[in-house]
């Protein structure tokens, strides 16, 4: 399946993890809770919004093509409790994001954690 292969090329690594209830919110029916993947790229936008904040990440494939992933986290209140702010990310920031991808195969998913260029990891 070409999409699957492309996904593997694009991703820095693919992790197989046991399903956890962390994202019980939007459930296994839509996002792949058993096949978490890591994407690495450059932030193009950070939307501080409800009910989900959304990080847009440009991921460059080995052939130079760029695909923009849109990955969602929690709402502004819950993220604020965890130390995230509307200034956590700026366009151009390098990030590594562990996500649960959509089963649709489109470049969207739910964030598990984000590692910043300075090594800090946000849950």
């Amino acid at each position: 399946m070409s999409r699957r292969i492309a996904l593997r090329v694009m991703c820095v690594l693919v992790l197989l993890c046991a399903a956890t209830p962390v994202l019980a919110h939007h459930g296994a029916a839509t996002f792949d809770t058993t096949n978490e993947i890591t994407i690495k790229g450059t932030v193009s936008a950070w939307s501080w919004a409800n009910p989900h904040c959304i990080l847009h990440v440009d991921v460059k494939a080995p052939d130079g093509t760029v695909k923009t992933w849109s990955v969602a986290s929690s709402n502004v209140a819950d993220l604020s409790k965890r130390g995230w702010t509307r200034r956590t990310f700026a366009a151009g920031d390098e990030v590594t994001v562990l996500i649960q991808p959509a089963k649709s195969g489109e470049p969207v998913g739910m964030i598990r954690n984000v590692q910043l260029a300075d090594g800090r990891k946000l849950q």
Partner: protein
Amino acid sequence: MRTGVNLAALATIALAFPSASSAQEWGFPGLGNAEFAAITAGGPAPRRDLTGAWDPGQAGIAGGDNYFNARTVPPLTPLGKEMLSRNRPTHGPYTAKVFEGNDPLTTQGDPSGFPRILNYEFRPMRIVQTPKAVLMLYSFNQSWRIIWTDGRALPQDPDPRWFGYSVGRWEDDTTFVVETVGLTERTWLDSGGFPHSEALRVQERYRRASENVIELTVTITDPLVYAKPWISRDRLPLKKLPEETDFLEQIYAASEVTGFKQNIADKARTQ
């Protein structure tokens, strides 16, 4: 000067969560579990007084085991089952795929309405008492209610409203009881899609257990939808925040919920 929180409690909060105790801090998002647990009962309950800033903590937000389910909700009537079948929640026991969701709050930006504001995303709130009313000011969706205490009766055959019509009375020196009717059936009771009709009547019982704790019990009575009355909040503790706490603004604006739908949910669609 009455701050409502004794010094020991303030010190505890200060150690546990500095931003909660700093005077004139802006945008408090709510207590985490450890900070919530650190707030002790404090002194005795003041007489007929709910004034202050309050936080139900994580239990107010729902999630995990907090969703209503067949164990907590009585059997639905045939009409109730039909209404439930039309709802496509993305939380709870009847979770649909995210792209199928039709939660009026999270997919359309409708108000939470009442009593959903108490059952889901019940976040820090402020209570203000005036000579003729008690005001409930909710940080979530920046919404508010007036509970009339001037002795008026509930309206007969009211036009349904998102937050209904409420009257309250002190049952004793520590228990304030609120009755609410006239609620539009456009709102869900929670994020799990449990419905209600316009026959819904809600009773809230606020028991000032101590200086720093209110216990809230909410009873749902809707004979058109549920076989019998049921309790959606059972002595839910609200803990007192410093009086000067400024709340984070958390509004589910239509433009933002649409953004999630367009950027994430629609693209997650599978056949």
